[in-house]
């Protein structure tokens, strides 16, 4: 395998090294060194994965929207933007799933329930499903340009949809929900080390996001190249057959 087919560069190798180091440090600080919370006890440690995970997912979806807009804008139109949007959405869905799971586990320990119909939670669930749909649309097939255009329009529609869903769930909630559990027992007395751990988590997860998207974007490019070369290959084979039959 020649080197230009690999997805790593010296930059991503260095970045990956720091990400692994940062995660090791985060685990040590989050699980062993930082103190338990006064109200929440040990369950507060879930936060060190949950909050950065949610942050990463939102960052990824914003990036998907921005790259989609960049693809649709004629002056910056390039399939690279489309691949960044796709890679970013994949990473975002993964981490949104992780933060939904960690969040409901934390909720069970702290609120005594896995789920509450709070506007933020409900919107997050909608966001999760919406981007699963986005990834499904990317898998529909057709040419690369078809895929890019379809999914870019969809990503921008999601930007339109999500605030509307959030707003309507909030309305629904305020009028029809008795005192929500969110807000009770959630006050975290943050000491310096806890804040630092959380901050470290956000930084490490952001670096991890960049690292994952760079790799995934390049592997998507290789997939596209494979698609194209597969087509070229089939075409030249048919041509060869035709010339043979002609002789």
């Amino acid at each position, binding site marked *: 395998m020649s080197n230009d087919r690999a997805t790593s560069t010296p930059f991503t190798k260095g970045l990956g090294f720091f990400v692994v180091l940062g995660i090791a440090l985060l685990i040590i600080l989050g699980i062993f060194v930082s103190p338990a919370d006064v109200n929440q006890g040990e369950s507060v440690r879930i936060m060190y994965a949950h909050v950065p995970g949610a942050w990463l997912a939102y960052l990824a979806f914003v990036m998907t929207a921005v790259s989609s807009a960049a693809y649709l804008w004629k002056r910056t139109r390039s399939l690279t933007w489309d691949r960044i949007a796709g890679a970013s959405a994949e990473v975002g869905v993964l981490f949104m799933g992780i933060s939904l799971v960690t969040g409901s586990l934390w909720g069970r320990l702290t609120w005594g329930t896995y789920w509450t119909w709070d506007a933020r939670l409900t919107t997050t669930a909608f966001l999760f499903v919406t981007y699963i749909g986005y990834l499904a*649309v990317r898998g529909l097939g057709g040419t690369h340009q078809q895929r890019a255009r379809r999914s870019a329009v969809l990503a921008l529609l999601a930007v339109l949809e999500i605030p*509307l869903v959030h707003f309507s769930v909030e309305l629904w909630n305020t009028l029809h929900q008795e005192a929500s559990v969110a807000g009770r027992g959630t006050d975290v007395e943050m000491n310096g080390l806890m804040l630092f751990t959380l901050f470290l988590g956000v930084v490490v997860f952001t670096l991890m996001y960049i690292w994952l998207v760079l790799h995934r974007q390049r592997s998507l490019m290789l997939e596209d190249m494979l698609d194209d070369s597969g087509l070229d290959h089939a075409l030249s084979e048919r041509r060869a057959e035709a010339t043979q039959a002609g002789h």
Partner: protein
Amino acid sequence: MSNASQQRFTGTTVIGTARLIAAKDLRVELRSRVLLNQVLPFALIVMVMFAFALDSDAVLERVAPGLVWLAAMFSTLIMVSRSFAVETADGALDQLRSAGVPAMGIFIGKMMALMAQLVVLVTLLILTAVVLYRAELSWAGSVLLVTTGLTATCGLAAVGTLYGGLAAGAKGRETLLPLLLLPVVAPVLIGATRATESAFGTRGVSTGQGWPWLGLLAVFAVLFSVSGAVAFGPLLDD
């Protein structure tokens, strides 16, 4: 496609195209009777099944507005699929576009036809709720209900046409459409259900409390009508 017909279509305005497309879709329905013979009976059986599942007159009366709109959403999915199956079966959509028919006109036309069919569907569903779930209707409630019905179906038709066009022609679109569409129409479900609750007077909610929810429905309808009309062209051009 001959040159003459190409010129005739490019000369047509968006509104003219919309009218032609809408009339065409309704004519297809009139002749095939898919809405009448398949979708409306489906919606009815869903309403009956809800009653089996909930198994209590009191509960049914309380949740009737939500069930009406839930059944409407499920039926919308089928109708959107149908609306675009007609277009993609013989590559009609591609031919319309290569003939230079304005995409905005296609969008508005299909949306109008879908909305007309949805109005029939929702009317039937509300009547079913009155008969089966003992929903009560006053005169003031009826005014609210008609306005809600029109606004909500407008929103549903817009978003349905937009996402239907997005999935049109792709393999596996029947299974993809519900995944794409249901999360988007959640605001319509919330708004229309609350407004219908007020119209029915469910749980002692007064009619006046229903009007603010219309705002939400109107915002949704306007937002997706406009973005659909704008985005439909780029979606179809390939």
